[in-house]
């Protein structure tokens, strides 16, 4: 196919979430790919629909109504490729995050080495580890076998052994897994990923090919004790997850066929895009992407082209909400609320929302509760993922390392909130440090660009450059040891027209200096009391900052963010912050 044809095709990108299904059209406008429009519909994987295809067609119908173009033809089937009359699209790609959490058994040799790698690998997707086997497991082989069968796994992740290293123990475990698969009903057999000692790949095929639901063999996640390399295995795992969804959910097979196999788990596509951004923009400190919706909270951080991807279904805002209090106490949620509310009302909310994940808050109080829960869930996800970020030795483990860029998306961030509300939610939950721009991905495009990249390399770059994401502005986070209300930073912002604005920032404050999108300014920072405004403790300097919908935001509320112990004062403070960002 001539290159020019490939480069100018229109692309329909489908995202099937737990609550919402989106149909997004990308097309070429004036020689560049652009995000054209998004059509949305409630997702239909669950009862009573039980077919994701219904929601996909509804979303495409909504997209048709917005664009005025015809995408669905006879029998409500997608018109592809595009026709001379302008109807249809040339290509389809898709991501999926809906579906039951994947019950996963992880297997390794050493509990603190390969098993941990397997656990981290499982965390790259919508999985929950339900059983772990390793050398320190003193159960007999048949007891291990029964434990695996009782766990009813959808997935088994096998790791262990350095390349060419010990194999005997690994082979015994492989036999147990093979027997467990053999004993399960054929239609329930787990998908198996082997990412251990590469020298055993032949034996793995011999033992598991006939009995696993599907088997993938990837390069070893631990080629040596000191090295962990999850990326190739996470790619194979993504492929197995799509296979599982094809087996579990009606309509996935059809959608996958429509995409010609270009379908990925949403969080994997998000991670792929973050890796790309980290390389493309030569990020030296890191690019962070967070996404929180009904399926999961996912965190992808790119450092020098390497990505740390973590997917936490337990922090999703849908059916798993009833279990959120296993990971946090109720005060962890209440601290984000300006409302004086009975803690049991929060507990009831969590259970009721888990029954109906797709519902929306209709009142302001309900909305406030929803946002408080989203904050805490995202806070927990970012803190959990942060444990696996490379440590530069400077940042404390409970504080994020300095980053170059944050992109936030997902239903809880992008849909329906004012930009000020989105900003405050992200500042509270992520608590970034240093000086960095923050983008909101209101239409959840990032994962779609990640999957579209496998079809068309130009599309993601051109769509990103076209301003499809909303720039909130530049965030300056100040770390200081001071009492509430003490001055910690003097700021002077000089606009391009020569005018300036000055500000004395006090500890505990949240300040905004207007600077519209597309404009830049020189920002002079003079910390007091050894405060660190991103230039180092007590260091002054001048930096160029870019504007955005909110301008330049100076967050001097401390890291980690601290609240007054008095509940009345805390609620007043939250109201003040909300007022600062526009209510």
């Amino acid at each position, binding site marked *: 196919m001539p290159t020019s044809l490939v480069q100018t095709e229109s692309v329909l990108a489908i995202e099937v979430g737990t609550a919402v299904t989106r149909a997004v059209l990308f097309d070429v406008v004036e020689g560049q790919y652009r995000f054209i429009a998004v059509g949305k519909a409630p997702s*239909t994987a669950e009862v009573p629909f039980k077919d994701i295809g219904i929601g996909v067609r*509804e979303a495409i119908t909504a997209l048709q109504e917005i664009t005025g173009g015809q995408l669905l033809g006879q029998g409500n089937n997608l018109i592809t490729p595009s026709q001379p009359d302008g109807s249809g699209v040339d290509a389809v790609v898709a991501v999926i995050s809906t579906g039951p959490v994947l019950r996963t058994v992880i297997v390794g040799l050493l509990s603190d080495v390969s098993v941990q790698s397997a656990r981290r690998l499982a965390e790259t997707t919508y999985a929950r580890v339900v059983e772990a086997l390793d050398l320190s497991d003193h159960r007999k082989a048949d007891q291990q076998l029964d434990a695996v069968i009782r766990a009813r796994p959808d997935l088994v992740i096998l790791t262990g052994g350095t390349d060419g290293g010990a194999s005997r123990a690994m082979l015994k475990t492989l036999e147990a897994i093979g027997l467990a698969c*053999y004993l399960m009903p054929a239609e329930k057999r787990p998908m198996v990923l082997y990412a251990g000692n590469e020298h055993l790949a032949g034996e793995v095929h011999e033992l598991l090919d006939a009995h696993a639901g599907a088997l993938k063999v990837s390069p070893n996640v631990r080629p040596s004790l000191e090295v962990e390399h999850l990326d190739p295995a996470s790619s194979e795992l993504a492929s197995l997850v799509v296979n599982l969804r094809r087996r579990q959910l009606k309509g996935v097979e059809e959608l996958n066929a429509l995409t010609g196999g270009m379908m990925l788990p949403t969080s994997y596509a998000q991670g792929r895009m973050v890796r790309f951004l980290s390389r493309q923009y030569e990020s030296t400190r890191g690019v962070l992407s967070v996404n929180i919706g009904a399926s999961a909270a996912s965190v992808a951080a790119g450092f020098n082209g390497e990505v740390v991807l973590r997917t936490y279904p337990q922090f999703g805002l849908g059916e798993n909400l009833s279990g959120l209090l296993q990971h946090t106490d109720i005060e962890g949620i209440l601290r984000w609320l300006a409302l004086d509310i009975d803690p049991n009302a929060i507990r009831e909310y969590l259970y009721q929302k888990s029954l109906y994940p797709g519902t929306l808050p209709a009142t302001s109080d309900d909305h406030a509760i929803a946002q408080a829960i989203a904050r805490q869930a995202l806070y927990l996800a970012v803190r959990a993922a942060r444990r696996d970020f490379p440590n530069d030795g400077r940042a404390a483990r409970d504080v994020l390392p300095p980053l170059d860029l944050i992109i936030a998306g997902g239903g809880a961030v992008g849909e329906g*909130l004012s930009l000020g509300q989105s900003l405050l939610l992200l500042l509270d939950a992520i608590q970034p440090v240093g000086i960095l721009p923050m983008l909101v991905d209101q239409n959840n495009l990032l994962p779609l660009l990640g999957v579209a990249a496998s079809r068309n390399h130009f599309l993601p770059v051109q769509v990103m450059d076209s301003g499809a994401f909303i720039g909130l502005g530049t965030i300056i986070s100040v770390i200081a040891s001071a009492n509430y209300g003490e001055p910690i930073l003097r700021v002077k912002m000089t606009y391009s027209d020569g005018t300036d604005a000055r500000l004395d920032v006090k500890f505990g404050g949240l300040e905004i200096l207007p600077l519209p999108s597309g404009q830049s300014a020189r920002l002079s920072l003079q910390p007091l009391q050894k405060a660190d405004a991103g230039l180092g403790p007590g260091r002054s300097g001048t930096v160029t900052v870019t504007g955005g919908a909110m301008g330049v935001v100076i967050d001097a509320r401390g890291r980690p963010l601290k609240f007054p112990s008095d509940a009345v004062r805390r609620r007043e403070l939250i109201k003040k912050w909300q007022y600062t960002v526009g209510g």
Partner: protein
Amino acid sequence: MLAPVLHVLPVTTIVRERLLPAAGKVNVSVNQRVNPTDVVAEASFSREHLLLDVARTFGVSPQAADTMIKVQAGDVLKQGAVIAENGGFFSRSIKAPRAGRVAAAGSGQVLMEVGDARIELRAGLPGMVVRVIPERGVVIRTVGALIQGTWGNGRVDHGLMTSLIERPDDILTPDRLDVSLRGSVILGGYVGDAATLRAAAELPVRGLIVSSLHFSLLPSAVQMRFPILVLDGFGMMPMNSAAFELLRTHDKNAVTVNAEFPDRYGGGRPEVIIPKDVVNEPDEPEDYVPFAVGQKVRMRRAPHAGMIGSIAALPAGLSKLPSGLRAPAAEVRLENGDTLLVPLVNLEVVG
């Protein structure tokens, strides 16, 4: 936009597929009448496995051990039955440590299944078997009133229903559960304490249909051996008026409570079925329909969760909600005459 339908119907045709989780044996045939608690299919599985390492025990290679193994897959063995012998003057043998079945033999090992357990698939509703799915289950058809709920504890039973609810916002307390209710299915309001569940278990009752349940009672509810079906949700919520009125008119009727545990992706909804004899079978109800003005709807989220109203208008495009969010919404007229703007995703059609 399509709306999920919550079935609260005085008479309808109900067709339900009941499937085993694994291959087994179907106990009924087409055109056979079944009761809700009849076991229509069953499968057996082994609670445990024993792996006997013949090669290691005899200190020989797996290939050599295979020649010594005297059993094959499928063999049913009594305790002490010989599994392998190494022959010779001082022959040693490996015997079955427990009765069981050989699941696999080879590579110097024998895998035994021991401790049989059964999965019993109950009909879940009274009716006629209209289709048998070999080795997996059946399709059952009946006609009657159908009232769906939001949560169930996974149990099924049937019996005469006694209503202990006077108003939709009644609270069911243990003192209401006296010995005269033994063996009944109880229709009650909100259950807020464990004592009520314990009192119901002590009678025992054959089912509990309640408007709502305190969230802290979920673990206890799952442990109860009788079906508990929650109509409206968690927290103190009144019973939706559609279910309240229909169920109250069936006081002292035989009802089936299929308190199916929620399986969002594969299962059905928990439901109450009250069989009826009719001359002409009505059509099966639709599980989802497009939203339309005039439809009766139930609200699924605070502040009016569980309340019933009717769609007065469907504004085009997105509507701005009191929360500040913008979403497709409906103007819903509640039974008390108030009109609210409600996001469509917070509604289900009742019908």
